[in-house]
């Protein structure tokens, strides 16, 4: 089916688009109860209970006999959440109404931010990256600052996702941040005006400390291919001894972009094989005629936050024998989800297809019922940790041990 061939991988909330008027799934399908009833008739009384019978029996037991009362919808949503979690797929989840709404709001992209990337911190949120010239940068926020309050409200204990929602807002509006900074005696109060932030997704140069090209790719958006090609050509014209492509903290994006970028290195090769519910597999290939004839040793940097299109790019290059991977194992997302709004305003997000790497690897992340990692992601060829995770700055020779390793590696080859 042609549609399946066009399926791209969409990671990154800014690029998610919902068509207007999403469809609803009516849970009141008149057929089903009679089908179950029929099965029960045929099976007889002593037969093993069906999953639904098991569920309803214990639901009643728990709801009726527990020493505390809980509202019905709370019980229902918790049950459905647990049911989805049993699959061990962190991307197949039940979204209860309030979560489903937030999820859809975020994807509409009317909100803008301040141009910084945040990470977890027990006191609030850690500023991991500050984009050059974006509002946060111009307001004086620096990497490793810790945001402890937003608009006067303490954010310790909240998830990064929640803190991010507080910081985002309408363009032109102001958000007040309270920050802790090492070396500063008192917490800093900084006001930032929200604005649309253009993030360059690919930037490259020759390193100062080694004759090696370095391209950092932060996501796979539509414009990334062009930026990547431009900087890659610039680097190649300087005749480097090797190339380091940085995919760390890259959450992915368009599969099509990843495929075009692979096309600069390998022509007409399989990028992924799509496997869906109906077991039909489709192959997706790199374009022809775009190769830049690169014959250099290449190292690709990955970490636990490299996901999706980033993993596909790195994994494919690894499978083609064109690059070695350096860093720590990647996240483990190479799949496509369908979000189905349900009748009561909750949603079911379900993985409907997987992308297998060229040599057939399934890198899907598997977690236990508590969401703790069990397996998944791509293992690097060379396992290298960042020496100083709190103080590291990607791309800065002195403070990026993974970069140094990768550069040395390509120079030795």
């Amino acid at each position, binding site marked *: 089916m042609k549609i399946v061939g066009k*399926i*791209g*991988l969409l990671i*990154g*909330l*800014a*690029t*998610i*688009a*919902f068509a207007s008027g999403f*469809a609803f799934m009516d*849970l*009141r399908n008149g057929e*089903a*109860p009679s089908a179950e009833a029929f099965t029960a008739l045929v099976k007889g009384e002593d037969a093993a209970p069906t999953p*639904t*019978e*098991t569920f309803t029996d*214990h639901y009643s*037991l728990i709801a009726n*006999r527990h*020493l505390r*009362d809980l509202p019905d919808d*709370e019980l*229902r949503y*918790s049950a*459905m959440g*647990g*049911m*989805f*979690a*049993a*699959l061990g797929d962190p*991307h197949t989840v039940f979204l209860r109404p309030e979560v489903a709404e937030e999820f859809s709001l975020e994807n509409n992209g009317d909100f803008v*931010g301040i141009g910084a990337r945040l990470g977890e911190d*027990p*006191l609030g*949120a850690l500023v*991991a*990256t500050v984009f050059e010239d974006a509002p946060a940068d111009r307001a004086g926020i620096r990497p490793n600052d810790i945001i402890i309050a937003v608009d006067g409200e303490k954010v310790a204990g909240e998830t990064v*996702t929640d803190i991010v929602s507080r*910081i*985002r807002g309408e363009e032109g509006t102001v958000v007040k941040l309270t920050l*802790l900074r090492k070396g*500063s005696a008192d*917490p800093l109060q900084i006001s930032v005006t929200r604005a649309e932030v253009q993030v360059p997704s690919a930037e490259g140069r020759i390193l100062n400390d080694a004759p090696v090209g370095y391209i950092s790719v932060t*996501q796979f958006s539509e414009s990334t291919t062009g930026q990547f090609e431009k900087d890659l050509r610039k680097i190649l014209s300087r005749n480097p001894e090797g190339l380091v492509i940085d995919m760390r903290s890259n*959450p992915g994006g*368009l599969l*099509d972009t990843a495929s075009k970028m692979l096309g600069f290195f390998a022509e007409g090769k399989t990028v992924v094989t799509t496997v869906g519910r109906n077991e039909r597999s489709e192959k997706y290939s790199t374009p022809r005629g775009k190769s830049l004839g690169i014959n250099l040793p290449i190292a690709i940097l990955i970490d636990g936050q490299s*996901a*999706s299109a980033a993993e596909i790019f790195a994994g494919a290059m690894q499978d083609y024998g064109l690059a070695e991977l350096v860093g720590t194992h990647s996240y483990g997302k190479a799949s496509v*989800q*369908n979000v*189905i709004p349900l*009748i009561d305003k909750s949603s079911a*997000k379900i993985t409907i*297809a997987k992308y297998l790497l060229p040599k057939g690897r399934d890198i899907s992340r598997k977690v236990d*019922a508590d969401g703790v990692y069990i397996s998944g992601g791509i293992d690097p060829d060379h396992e290298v940790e960042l020496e100083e995770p*709190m103080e590291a700055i990607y791309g800065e020779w002195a403070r990026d041990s993974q970069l140094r390793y990768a550069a040395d590696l390509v120079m030795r080859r």
Partner: protein
Amino acid sequence: MTEGGKGLLAAAAVVSVVAAGGAGVLVRQQVEMGTGEAPAATAIVDGSLMASNSDISGMSEGEYFYKLTQLLSSTYVEQIQEPQDLAAGAVRGLIGSLADPHSRFYDADEFKRLRERQAGTYHGIGAELQYRYNEEQLDKARNRDSSTDALLLIPDIVVAAVLPGSPAEEAGLEPGDVIESIEGKWVMNPRDILKLRRLNEQVEEGSVNDEELMKFREDFNEKAENSLTPARATQKLNEDGDRISLTWLRDGKKISGKAARRVTSIEALRKTDSGLSVTLLNGSADQLARAVKDGASTLDLRGNPSGSYEVMEQALKAIAPSGEYGVLRTDDGADQGVKRSEGSGSLSGLQILTDRTTQGAAAAFALALEELGAATVKGDLDREPIWVEQHALPNGSGYTLAVGKLVAKGEQQ
């Protein structure tokens, strides 16, 4: 724009594809952003499923569950191997939503271990371990208070009892000890997080300098990188294997030691200097009846933090006189059922030794015998034990459910 900082939790590939098939799902088709083309909307409608007339309040949990299993079966990328796992997952979600320390879900392995312990076979260090929660936070969680701090909901692992002849006894562990680290890995607990937050407040007040906070935070983050969840820590302590090093807290002091991990078996009845030490294990009812017939006059119920209420009722039936001995009271003061002894004996004059380690079913046993005039209780004990039922699920997992406080009949609130 804080896109990367949102983390992969929120990152999703959203693809809506035509999902034909028996589940009758109504979805709107979208062309994925793979080629950057605008989405085309084509709706496939199955007339009977239009949402507009449907009312969720009319749908039972069973129907809702069934519909979702159908949805997953027809769209999830993998075949659902064990549908009963979905029901068990739903029950796990239900139990989790209760936020009750006495209501716990056990997966198949854990449930098997629980039943082994109830039969007198312990694996690992041979100690009964309990989770102790911050009641204030639990209450907030139950009330869906948005200020609930997930980090403060992490429980402490407390030694509730040390089995005679166990590695825990050899290592010097005592009831009340809180496990701090295993093999050098910190067991997550809320105390350090609270300290960090308090330091933060003190910095704001100006009474503590910034450097101390930063140092503590760095130490904390380092510890967190190499830590164990309470669940994982408990697993390590309850499985057989190599000797392990531990540290634990007693009255604010840190103690370290090493413990073997092997099988410790205990008998239901053990003659000691103070009388007959009783543990309510499976099959103990008959043994108890014989012992009492043979003239046992003092039962020692100390060191009994857990035990099955089912066995307790059997024990009453074996030795106690008949009669009502209490009533189950729910959290909002309602009475949920009278508890009566099925026994027919004429036992009297028994002495029962208890202390704060006589909890749950053992405490209920002592109180019942006292109420029925068969015994006098000597010592402290939990006079309002929480009655806990235990249930098994078809896939081997199971759960405990707190159904009420056992209070003496006629006792006013």
